[in-house]
């Protein structure tokens, strides 16, 4: 653990010694090399302490050097919980520690370490709530200690986008298994995407040693990589993580700030295996790491992980690590093998020949810290006397590095997400993955195959299977794969009376925590997880799953297979929200006249995906604007863009019959040239949309629908006709038409100027529809005209092909200029229609409103055999009615009293709620407050009064009145 010393080449595969990089950690400056990770650069500088643990604030340092643990989580300026062993350094990068009080070095919260015994597993459930109410106080204190890093509230996402990719075969992991699979598949003619999360391909070949001489891997690696890179059918993607497996081989691959969504016809997962730790006291001290971590430090970064090492072996791999350590000048004090002997005697001879003492049948019982607890200083080595049991005394061996390997756990995450089953072979002490879905294969160490030749054969074998499934049979025999290498020591767990033998580093969970959870009754491994939080931290159980399963099995008299492990869920690695969110697609839709409204200063509001003018003018003068616009419509002429209104074109010999079945009214006898109100009920008998049906020919109807309802109305129509099979063509023409409603006493005068149609009250009476031309200075526009009365004045809707929409608007505005034509918005329209007592579906109706409650009985044809919802309408209308939508006014003196009921206020009856206000406005035309409300059926009589509770809790009396409020005999709209 000395200063800036780096090993010589060929160590340091990833770094460029010619490119020094300086950065800071906790305010201190350090130098590393391009290619270094934050962790390798810091350790290269002798800075071991990287983070503080979640619960006890224990000092932590690298464990895997592969981003598979939470020990290296650090804070970047606006990026919390960043993996120091996967994050490259860059010039002037500022890195901080996280989760401490004071400094990382002197964390005041580290005292929590001494109180561990008062915090048994699940202690939160057993304290802090007596006396009643005290929890509120405790909670605040406890919450302050929660969390790891800190979010930067000013952070914003950079640019993140996504890309869809399609391949015959995706190979996840470019270790020997993946390389060999990709090569075979590409040779067989498949298009292959080969993914690896690291910056270079090769996987374990890059850092691991495969034989005593240490030569086999190098040649193999170079050969495989060269061939893969030369193969045109293979696309290699590095620094790319396959972050989940979703149904039908749908693979999210994250590379930098881009999310690739990859569809693979076939997928081979060659993701390798995670080395496992030995559970003993203080196994979390800085300087205690996986064998593979030490190898990565040396091979990838040329960092010497220590000067005096002890290697703790549960398999032969650790022997190889000992050899590399020795070769790189680390004094290996001892190789402690928990087994009776190594499986491969060649290896143990090589280790002995290197002058390393091999101690078999022993384990590290405890790691002893330096003064200050920041690093390992020695190990207490004991003979193993039984499962998890050790001799009463042993020997102490000094060291500043402990490399351990208890075994390997397959990288099962992606496969578990594919519902593969993880089974445990109690005899061989290893997991197996089976029950894979079709088109998904595993190869290499994830498949429990460890000898290099077998790994390569396995990759090839799976590629041949994938090729077969692709219909590209490969004329080669499927190699048989055989591997009897024993990787796992079956009980690498040594409980210590003083505890701190960590099973889960993320959550600071010790052996007793797991065992005690089962003793308190949480026996299922899933309950153990939820009670103790084992496996719920940032590394999601990559290292705790196996020891937990073993401990739970042992404590509950079951086998590990019976116990199982908890479910691995997406994502594979923690993923930034911004990457998944991506570039935000927020589609918006504009009418052909949109820019005219903006130019006129409209306040635009959303209406479904559309934007519509609410009114024209400054938002703070809303009421004034609405009043002005309403006045213009009532007394002169106004125009509103109604392009967003849904439009459906129904044509064919059965068009009338079709509409007759869809809508409640009768349409068979609707005359050509006339419009009819059309109400739509759901199959439950609830009013869900309304519009106007225009018959332009015997076999041609144009039906309007609400802005937000039309898509679903259209879909439902199509579905009904897939069953009815009537001769009708149904088209959603909403976007094909732009439209305005020209309304007000002077509407006819304006219209006259721009059309040759007979627009007199006889020639074009109320509720008629016409086809004709609108004349503009730029030419004439074919139009459909509907004489309708939604706002209660003489009015014409003019619908034109949308390409003419802007010209239509201009023509109307120009023709109306001499009358002072006033554009009006949706909010004004809402007031005007309220004065006429017209309902707005979804504002004045809710999910239960049936035609009876809305007094729409007149719009239901009782003589026809069927319409959608008819039977339900019968049932609900025949049942006892409970409420009704009525018009109401407040006494004249209530105007301007500040007691106007608002939409949503309640109607009361005694102590009960009997209804609610759906619409309420001050009507300038009537100088009264008017509205629509659901009231109890007994309150619905015209002239009767009811109470409304308004803002502030006071009540007002409203009286039921007949509709419409305005122009009761409809003279104005029919003039």
């Amino acid at each position, binding site marked *: 653990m000395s200063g800036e010393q780096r090993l010589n080449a060929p160590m340091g595969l990833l770094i460029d010694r010619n490119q020094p990089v300086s950065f800071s950690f906790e305010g201190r400056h350090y130098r590393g090399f391009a290619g270094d990770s934050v962790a390798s650069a810091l350790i290269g500088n002798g800075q071991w302490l990287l983070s503080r643990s979640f619960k006890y604030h224990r000092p932590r340092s690298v464990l895997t050097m592969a981003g598979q643990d939470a020990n290296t989580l650090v804070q970047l300026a606006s990026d919390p919980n960043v993996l120091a062993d996967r994050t490259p350094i860059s010039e002037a990068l500022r890195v901080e520690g996280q989760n401490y009080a004071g400094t990382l070095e002197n964390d005041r919260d580290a005292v929590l370490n001494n109180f561990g015994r008062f915090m048994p597993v699940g202690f939160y459930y057993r304290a802090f709530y007596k006396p009643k109410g005290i929890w509120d106080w405790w909670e605040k204190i406890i919450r302050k200690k929660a969390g790891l890093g800190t979010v930067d509230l000013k952070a914003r996402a950079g640019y993140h*986008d*996504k*890309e*869809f*990719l*399609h391949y015959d075969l995706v190979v996840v992991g470019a270790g020997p298994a993946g390389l060999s699979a990709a090569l075979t598949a590409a040779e067989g003619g498949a298009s292959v995407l080969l993914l690896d999360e690291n910056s270079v391909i090769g996987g374990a070949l890059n850092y691991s040693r495969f034989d005593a001489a240490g030569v086999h891997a190098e040649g193999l690696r170079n050969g495989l990589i060269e061939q893969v890179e030369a193969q045109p059918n293979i696309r290699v993607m590095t620094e790319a993580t396959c972050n989940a497996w979703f149904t039908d081989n749908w693979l999210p691959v994250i590379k930098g700030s881009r999310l690739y*969504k990859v*569809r693979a016809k076939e997928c081979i997962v060659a993701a390798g295996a995670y080395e496992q730790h030995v559970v003993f006291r203080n196994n979390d001290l800085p300087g205690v790491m996986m064998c593979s971590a030490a190898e990565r430090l040396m091979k990838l970064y040329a960092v010497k992980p220590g000067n005096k090492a002890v290697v703790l072996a549960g398999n032969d791999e650790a022997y190889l690590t000992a050899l590399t350590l020795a070769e790189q000048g680390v004094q290996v004090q001892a190789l402690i093998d928990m087994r009776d002997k190594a499986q491969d005697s060649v290896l143990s001879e090589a280790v002995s020949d290197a002058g390393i003492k091999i101690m078999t049948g022993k384990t590290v019982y405890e790691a002893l810290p330096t003064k200050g607890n920041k690093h390992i200083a020695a190990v207490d080595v004991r003979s193993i006397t039984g499962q998890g049991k050790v001799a009463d005394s042993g020997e102490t061996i000094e060291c500043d590095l402990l490399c351990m390997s208890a075994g390997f756990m397959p990288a099962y995450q992606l496969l578990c997400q594919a519902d593969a089953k993880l089974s445990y072979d109690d005899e061989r002490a290893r997991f197996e993955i089976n029950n894979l879905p079709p088109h998904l294969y595993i190869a290499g160490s994830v498949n429990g195959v460890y000898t290099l030749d077998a790994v390569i054969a396995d990759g090839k074998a799976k590629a041949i299977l994938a090729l077969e499934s692709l219909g590209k049979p490969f004329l080669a025999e499927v190699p048989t794969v055989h591997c009897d290498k024993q990787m796992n020591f079956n009980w690498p767990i040594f409980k210590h009376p003083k505890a701190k033998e960590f099973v889960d580093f993320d959550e600071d969970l010790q052996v007793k925590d797991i065992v005690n959870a089962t003793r308190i009754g949480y026996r299922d491994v899933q309950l153990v997880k939820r009670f103790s939080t084992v496996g719920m931290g940032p590394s999601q159980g990559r290292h705790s799953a196996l020891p937990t399963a073993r401990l739970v099995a042992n404590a509950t008299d079951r086998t590990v297979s019976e116990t199982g492990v908890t479910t691995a869920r997406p994502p594979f690695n923690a993923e930034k929200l911004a990457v998944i969110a991506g*570039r935000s*697609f927020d*589609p*918006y*839709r*504009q*009418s*052909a006249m*949109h*820019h005219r409204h903006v130019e006129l200063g409209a306040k635009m509001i959303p209406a479904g*995906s*559309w934007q519509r003018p609410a009114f024209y003018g400054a938002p703070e003068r809303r009421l004034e604007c609405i009043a002005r616009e309403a006045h213009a419509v009532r007394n002169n002429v106004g125009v509103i863009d109604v392009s967003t209104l849904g439009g459906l*074109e129904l*044509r*064919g*010999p059965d068009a009338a019959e079709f509409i007759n079945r869809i809508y409640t009214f009768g349409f068979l006898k609707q005359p050509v040239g006339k419009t009819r109100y059309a109400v739509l009920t759901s199959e439950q008998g609830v009013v869900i949309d309304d519009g106007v049906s225009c018959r332009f020919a015997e076999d041609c109807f144009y039906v309007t629908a609400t802005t937000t309802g039309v898509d679903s109305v259209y879909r439902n129509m199509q579905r009904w006709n897939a069953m009815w099979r009537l001769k009708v*063509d149904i*088209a*959603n*023409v*909403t*976007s*094909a*038409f732009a439209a305005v409603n020209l309304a007000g006493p002077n509407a006819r005068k304006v219209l006259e100027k721009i059309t040759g149609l007979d627009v007199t009250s006889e020639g074009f009476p109320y509720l008629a529809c016409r086809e004709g031309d609108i004349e*503009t200075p*730029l*030419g004439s*526009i074919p139009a459909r005209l509907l004489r309708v009365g939604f706002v209660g004045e003489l009015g014409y809707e003019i619908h034109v*092909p*949308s*390409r*003419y*929409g*802007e*010209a239509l608007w201009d023509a109307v505005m120009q023709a109306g200029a001499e009358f002072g034509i006033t554009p009006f918005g949706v909010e004004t329209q809402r007031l005007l229609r309220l004065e006429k007592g017209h309902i707005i579906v979804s504002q004045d109706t809710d999910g239960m409103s049936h035609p009876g409650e809305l007094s729409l009985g007149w719009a239901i044809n009782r003589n026809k055999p069927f319409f959608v919802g008819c039977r339900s309408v019968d049932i609900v209308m025949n049942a006892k009615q409970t409420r009704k939508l009525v018009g109401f006014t407040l006494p004249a003196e209530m105007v301007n009293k500040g007691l106007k009921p608002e939409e949503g206020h309640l109607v009361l009856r005694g102590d009960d709620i009997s209804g609610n206000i759906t619409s309420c406005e001050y009507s300038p035309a009537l100088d009264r407050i008017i509205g629509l409300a659901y009231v109890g059926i007994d309150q619905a009589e015209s002239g009767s009064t009811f109470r409304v509770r308004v803002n502030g809790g006071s009540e007002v009396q409203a009286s039921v009145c007949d509709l419409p409020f305005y122009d009761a005999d409809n003279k104005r709209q029919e003039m």
Partner: protein
Amino acid sequence: MMTDSMTAVRPEQQLARNGLYRKIADAEFVATAESAIAASFSADDSSAQSRCALTDMTPVVRGGFRGKASADHLQALGLPIPEKPNQALTTDKGETVLRLSNTEYWLLGSVTDFGQTVADVRSQAMPAADCYPLFCNDSHAWLTLSGEHCAAVMAKLCGVDMRAEVFPSGSIAQTSVARINAIVVSHSVGGKAVFSLLFDTGYHAYMWDVLLDASSEFGGVAAGVTALMVD
């Protein structure tokens, strides 16, 4: 780069307009029968355009027919009929016939006559039954994406594989592009291989921005129709 037969015009002087013209106001527009189409941009760079270009074809006339008699009707008018749904055929004069279902056909006008031929087809007498003209000239906007990176641009917006091997000229995908329903056609316009996108006119400006954004990685630029008129 305008040919002599073209008349320069501003879009707002024409009767028919669309939701995009303000966004591409820096283009030089020429007149179509009733509208204006962007012919070229002052910043036109033909090498950039050949790599990746986005062109608004909305002013070019389109038409459509649906019903059992549609195929016969079109055939009688001399148009080729694609054999199966989701296939497209292009005529010698440059119109493209899309077959969208068993009984639905759309016609995309040629860039050389801005769709006049299609307009003529639309004005022909209709069969007495089972053939209904569609409204796609107004309900749908039309953009083309051209250049060697078309498939790569689409890969950022759409889940259908549009690489030439699997989506050759003559293919149609009715799918979702940047969360909007769209019809994507691989065909040629003015002799140039393009992807045509047809989608709800209300989203005209939205889709333009989305496509430009996606193509910026490939140096994508806005181009006028003259960029498509290669011989």
